[in-house]
């Protein structure tokens, strides 16, 4: 049995210690907002926050997350999260939407640390999140919009 702290709650799961956090969330805890995209940390669809840092859940063995604070798309809150989600909605960023949980998790982590990201900050923070619909221009615009809203 492994104890994980997810969105502020302790959850006990009976899984092999090497099971990636992604599958613990999706298959054991039925938290399906975190997505499976590639399984090798190349697409970012599975991005969660571990102690506030954007992390690919598909390459995070469950046991390595013990003792950390895990936040998923279902549990994000706070100023940056609210600003990012509002901007995403205002600009209708989504198309198919499958990558967007991960995009948002990366964007929230970026804005939490950096209230006024430059284009190259956005490149660095967001290049790990693939969007096959290529919603990238609106993602960039939404991050800037959210940054502005937070500063206001």
């Amino acid at each position, binding site marked *: 049995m492994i104890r994980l702290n997810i969105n502020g709650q302790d959850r006990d799961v009976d899984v092999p210690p090497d099971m990636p956090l992604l599958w613990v969330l999706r298959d054991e805890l039925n938290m399906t907002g975190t997505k499976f995209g590639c399984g090798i940390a190349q697409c970012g669809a599975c991005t969660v926050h571990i102690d506030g840092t954007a992390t690919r859940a598909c390459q995070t063995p469950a046991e390595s997350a013990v003792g950390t604070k895990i936040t998923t798309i279902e549990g994000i809150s706070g100023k940056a999260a609210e600003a990012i989600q509002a901007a995403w909605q205002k600009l209708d960023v989504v*198309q198919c939407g*499958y990558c967007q949980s991960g995009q948002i998790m990366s964007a929230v982590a970026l804005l939490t640390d950096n209230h006024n990201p430059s284009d190259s900050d*956005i490149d660095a923070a967001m290049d790990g999140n693939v969007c096959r619909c290529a919603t990238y221009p609106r993602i960039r615009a939404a991050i800037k919009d959210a940054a502005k809203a937070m500063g206001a």
Partner: protein
Amino acid sequence: MLHHLIKQAAGDVAVAAEPVTASRRSFLKGAGAVGGGLVIGAMLPRGAFAAEAKAPTIIGPADPRPQAFVRIAPDNTVTVLVKHLDKGQGIMTGLTTIVAEELDADWEQMRGAFAPADSTLYANHFFGIQGTGGSTAVANSWDELRMAGAAARAMLVATASARWNVPVSEITVEKGVVRHAKSNRTANFGALAEDAAKLPVPQKVALKDAKDYKLVGNPSLHRLDHVSKTNGTAIFAMDIRRPGQVTAVLARSPRFGGTVKSVDAAAAKQVPGVIDVLTLPVGVAVVAKNTWAAIKGREALKVEWDDAKAETRGTEEILADYRNLAEKQGNVAANKGDAEKALAGAAKVVEAEFVFPYLAHAPMEPLNATVELKPDGGCTIYAGSQFQGVEQKVVASILGCKPEQVAIETQWAGGSFGRRATPNADYIAEAAIIAKAYGKAPVHLVWTREDDIQGGRYRPLFLHKIKAGVDAQGKLVAWQQRIVGQSFMTGTPFEAVMVKNGVDETSVEGASDMAYAVPNLAVDLHSPVSPVTTLWWRSVGHTHTAYAKEVMIDELAAAAGKDPVAFRMDLLKDSPRLQGVLKLAAEKADWGKPLPKGRARGVAVHESFDTFVAHVAEVSVNDKGQVKVERVVCAVDCGQAVNPNIIEAQISGGTGWGIGHALRDEITMTGGVVDQANFDTYQPLRNSEMPPVEVHILPSTIRPTGVGEPGVPTAAPAVANAVFAATGKRLHHLPFTKSGMV
């Protein structure tokens, strides 16, 4: 693509494009109205639309029943039943907008829901079965949903008229409020719905004039999924969790066409969580308690494959075979004038060989489907279902039930780009086969990314050889083009319609019917066969034909010493809509204005799926040959814009799709085994590589056409032509890395 089913089958697209009058369809009240509310549906006369268009009869005769498109609930919500799959292109929003407009609803009260699978009610009128593709969804729903909205509005007004005892002519409807101004009475739709449902459905309804549109064409409407897809609550097929469900992954032959020779499942069965290993005609299925266990179980499998019927060539060998084939005349796709003779007399002749690689669709949501068997011998499928009409038939044949016993709960799809629509139901058939063999619980079949990248159904590898000439005045006089590539229609129910005289229209569309005025045109086609599975891929034939045409025409302009835009404008005198987008894109992109050193512009223009698009790309190329797309301007004419906000997104996204793959993507094989496996080797376009894209929509009140695919064809050739302008280098082999770029 399939759009052409109707064109080719009917030989007259006007049949389908002609506005349908109310008298051609009868509006019937849905049986079993939901929640006491109003249910409106347009019911086609037996087979009407499809029969007129002589669409392929891959479904049985229509069994007309009342069909519902609009549901108005007592809580004042209006739900539009959407017969098409929304895979990101925004059709849930688009179709809901059309109904809301005629209904004079308030956008806030509108909802969308995927319609159940039923081709007798929800056929795509271009296909004759229920399905989404070919950028047809708005075009084929336009009349049907305007009339459904208008009929519902008329019934609400009639109800208010009776209730208030005032003439219908004195009642207005605005933003979801039915009003009698003289007596200062109002009612919302929900309050009228129950009584309205008791009225007969009007046989004739008046439709709005475009100048009165408030929602259609309104850029401020939000997508219906803009909240659920930003907080993790939107449910995709991958997120379906049925009681007791198990997860399966399938081991497939590493070579296309290979079959299972022997299986040693001992180690796989030892993996904790693995429940069963099933050897099936489609491969070896590992059934497990969860996805991780299924994946680990498959890794532990030992399977020997029989390659007797498999493709064992690599892509280099396949290409060499195509080059040999291209030495010979193929099946004639176009033959106008005498290209051979005209070339002999041309002042300047340009020749080029173009190569287009196999490409994977790789939608973000890997393919998956859940199949739950029902006691009556049928089943329920949960999937991002794109070809419901095909899937019902295929799964029925697997289970030995009737197609109508195969229920499909269509889910949001995490992209498709053509991949989820397959003529043989492909991954959904696999899920049904496994569910039937396992038999004990709902089965969720999951493809991993590796399964997806290596699993075929690629945009086919294509070779084009083109020879074209201009006369002494620089006028285009001859065009000869030979195309070699697999047909994905071969062996499918679509073959009979789509392949005529050995020519698959989807292999030559955009080439054999090119809009440029050329008096002597010859296009022919070879369609070699291989076990490598191929499929339509966002914009289908236009993915390669538009590129070859637009790069070639640029070379001809250079040979003629003419400006690339002016040269095209001159050749498009009979195509005012192409001229319109070309002119607009050129203007907005400051065509002709000087650029800093190292930067250059390129242009391309093309029609696909009855939509017209021009791209102007601005690039910089550094001394290492690294291409950076700095700016893209495009113009689109898709007729009446239904949702400008979504059109902008689709054309911009299509631009990223076109450019992203052209830069570096290809699926190659060595000895028949695919060399790429995941996003580390098949590298998607990333945020920092996406150029700013400006989309300009031509104002129009012509019947709307699609935008899901038409943004793709001109994006890459515009970039290639800009690279030529910057470097003098022609990019004939895709991806660009095969033409010496980085």
